[in-house]
């Protein structure tokens, strides 16, 4: 069974937010909320600067604290791609998962349940990339099976230096950022 993840090339990403807008329309994300977002990180002092731009979202962690803390099993690891998903009509809206996520990836949907990136499973099942990946004008995002040694994501991880977000949290995130 697959284990989906993303590899994002920060050298190519320009932070245009297309991924964010695409997610909004594809998934009818309620206004004023977002399932993905852009972080820019600037290091240094003028004029010696280094900047990394990242498209961030739920990391679909291998070791997901949000799933562990959920009292109802609404937050769960889906066998399909081992992705982290929320079953809305099981969620009681206790918000423990929001507090448990070190990435701030979740929010409370205006209808009351915890919501977040689904890796666009409905698209992936049709053989498509997630919406954010499919619209990216820089083609900096890659989606695929981390368990398949021949996948594009693994090829990229083998070819470049990369980092994940807050590895010290021990969550084993599955979005990899190429340096």
């Amino acid at each position, binding site marked *: 069974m697959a284990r989906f993840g993303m590899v994002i090339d920060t050298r190519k990403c320009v932070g245009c937010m297309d991924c964010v807008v695409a997610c909004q329309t594809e998934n009818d994300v309620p206004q004023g909320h977002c399932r993905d977002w852009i*972080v820019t990180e600037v*290091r240094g002092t003028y004029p010696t600067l280094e900047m990394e731009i990242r498209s961030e979202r739920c990391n679909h962690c291998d070791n997901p604290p949000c*799933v562990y803390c959920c009292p109802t099993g609404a937050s769960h690891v889906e066998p399909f791609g081992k992705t982290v998903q929320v079953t809305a009509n*099981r969620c009681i*809206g206790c918000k423990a998962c*929001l507090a448990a996520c070190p990435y701030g990836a979740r929010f409370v949907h205006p209808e009351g349940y915890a919501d977040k990136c689904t890796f666009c499973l409905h698209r992936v099942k049709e053989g498509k990339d997630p919406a954010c990946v499919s619209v990216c004008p820089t083609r900096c995002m890659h989606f695929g099976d981390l368990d398949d040694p021949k996948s594009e994501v693994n090829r990229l991880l083998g070819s470049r230096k990369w980092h994940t977000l807050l590895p010290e949290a021990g969550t084993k995130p599955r979005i990899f950022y190429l340096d």
Partner: protein
Amino acid sequence: MLEITTTRHNPFVDPQLAVWGWEIPVYLFFGGMIAGMMILAGIAMLRVARGEDPESFFSVQTPLLGFMLMNVGMAALFLDLAHKLYVWAVYLTFEALSPMSWGSWVLLVAYGILMASALVRIGDSWPWLARTFPIVGRLSAAVETPSRLRLLAFANIGFGIGLGIYTGILLSAMVARPLWNSAILGPLFLFSGLSAAAAMVHLAIRIFPGRPAPQGMVGGAFAAMWQPLGPRAPRAGTENALVRADVGFLGVELVLLALLLLGLVTAGASQIAAAQILISGAYAPAFWGAIVFAGIVLPIALQLLELGHRIPHTVVPALLVLAGGFALRWVLVNAGQASQILQSASR
């Protein structure tokens, strides 16, 4: 220099996590206090079962009070839920890794234990109930055998400890919040719960002095609400015992609090930053003022003076302890949400 900007702007998540307002602190405070009351009640029941202190009521009858307070705590919890109509989903499953799932089931069992414990000497507390519903009297008699009382006592103590620790573990299981992410939170909340419980019972004794209860059904029911402890005044020494216990609990709480901070300030950058929120940050006045001074140090001093007969017994220390116990939950819940794992400035 590190400049981080994000386009994320989710309500209650940005710029800082703020998903829990007053409801969860209220729930955790009542949960901890009830846990403490269960433990105190359990100890009293053991003594009753051994035949000691047959007249003691201060803890034997507190399950009734606990039961009522439990409803307040649960109401607060319910108010916090964002998807209220789905609350039943908690009891369709048991999630072994989820403190909240454990807590939900522990609460359910605690409810049962409190209900069963409330039957102990219910005829004394609420005579109208036993008279109106003879079954209550029979059930009350059934639980009052020494062996059953002992069983009930151990259940109270065991689940009391479980509930008390759970209220802390609920927060400490969150890796994302360095301020919470310490196992000391479990015993800290347990001992804070115990001190609050002792204060609450002490307060109850003061507020509800024994008096003959109205006997009619309506009058009796109302009276029971106002007077959940029973008709007889406590024995001499009972108050002193409570105060002594409270001083002990507060002392342990103070040590645990110190250990919590020590653990944080001697750990990594995120933990140090988290500790600073309490020590010198936005919550420092509440932490030092309301929790450490007014909630622990001052009541210890006052109660020691009371025990030494330097000053008369008053409800002031009990009220301070209760306020301090709530402040502890409120500050930790809010400051903890403000704490986060920091990104390192260099890579």
